[in-house]
C-alpha cells in the first residue's frame, strides 16, 4: 500500500531540501556537542572572577586569594579538592574530591569556588 512511488508522490522538491538541511543541522549539532562528560578541566573563581582554568590531568597545588585569606587547592590526576580554607565551617574542605563534569566546590565565606564545567551526567531530580 505504501510503496516507494506513493511516498515520493507526497513529497515536494523543497521537502527534500528542508529534510537534508535538517539532517545537516542535526549532524553538525552532534559533532559540535561538548564531548567531555568525565570532566577535563577545573575552573577556579575568586570573588566571582575566574582566576584559573586548569587541566585535571596535571597534578599541582595552588593557593587562591579570597576575601578572608587564601584557599589551598589540590589537583591530582582527574580530580580536585580544597585542602585548606579560612571559612569557619570548612564545608568545601569536608566535601572532598570532585571529578565529574557538573561537580562544584563552594567555599562561600572566602568566595572561592571550583567547578568542573560540562554537562552533568547525574540527575538530581526528575518528575512529571
Amino acid at each position, binding site marked *: 500500500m505504501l510503496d516507494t512511488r506513493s511516498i515520493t508522490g507526497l*513529497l515536494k522538491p*523543497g521537502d527534500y531540501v528542508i*529534510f537534508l538541511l*535538517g539532517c545537516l543541522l542535526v549532524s553538525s549539532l552532534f559533532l559540535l556537542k561538548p564531548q567531555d562528560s568525565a570532566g577535563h578541566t577545573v575552573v577556579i573563581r575568586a570573588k566571582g572572577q575566574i582566576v584559573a582554568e586548569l587541566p585535571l590531568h596535571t597534578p599541582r597545588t595552588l593557593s587562591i586569594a579570597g576575601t578572608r585569606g587564601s584557599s589551598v587547592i589540590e589537583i591530582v590526576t582527574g580530580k580536585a579538592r580544597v585542602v585548606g580554607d579560612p571559612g569557619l565551617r570548612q564545608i568545601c574542605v569536608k566535601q572532598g574530591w570532585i571529578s565529574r563534569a557538573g561537580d562544584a566546590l563552594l567555599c562561600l565565606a572566602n568566595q572561592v569556588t571550583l567547578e568542573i564545567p560540562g*554537562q552533568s551526567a547525574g540527575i538530581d531530580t526528575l518528575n512529571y
Partner: protein
Amino acid sequence: MRHYSQMREVILPVTDEDRRIAGLAAIAIGLTLAEAALPSPIPGIKPGLANIVILLVLLQNGFKTAAWVSVIRLLAGSLLLGGFLSPGFWLAASGTAASLLILSIIQYLPEKLFGPVSLSILAAFSHIGGQLLLAWVWLLPSAGILALLPFFALAALVFGAANGFIVARLIAAKPDLGAQSVHV
C-alpha cells in the same frame, strides 16, 4: 428597581467557525492526552501528534484557526494533565509560540515547492528552539542544555518529518479533510 425578566439577555453568538475550532481543538487535545501516556526516553521528547491536526488546520482553514486550535490545545491540555502554569507549561508555551511564529511566515512558501513535510520540520525545529531557549534562559542557564540540543534536534527532524508526511497523506487521501471532517 429592575426585575429579572426586564434584564437584557446576553447571547454570545456561536459561529460555525467557533464550532469548527472547538471540534478541531478537541481532536488535538485528545492526541495530546494519548501521547502523554507514551513513555519517553528523555522528558520532553514527544512525537507531537497534535501538530498533525494543527498543520491540517493551517492548510485547510488558514493560520488564524490553526493558531486558535494550537493555543486552546496548549491551555486545555495542560489543565487536563495538571501542568497548567508549571515550568513544563511555560516550556510548551514557548515552543508553541515559536512554532506558530515560524508557521505564520513559512505558510507563504510556494506550495508547489514546499509541502506539509517542510512546514512540519521547520515548525518542529522552531518548537524545540523556543523551548530550549526558554529552558536555557530561565531554568538551566548552563552547558547542560547545549548537550541535549542534538538529541532534541534529531527528535524534531524525525517526528517533524513523520508528522508532515502523515499530513501529506491525509490531504492526498481526502483533499477537503480539514474543512469537512468536523461537524460538532
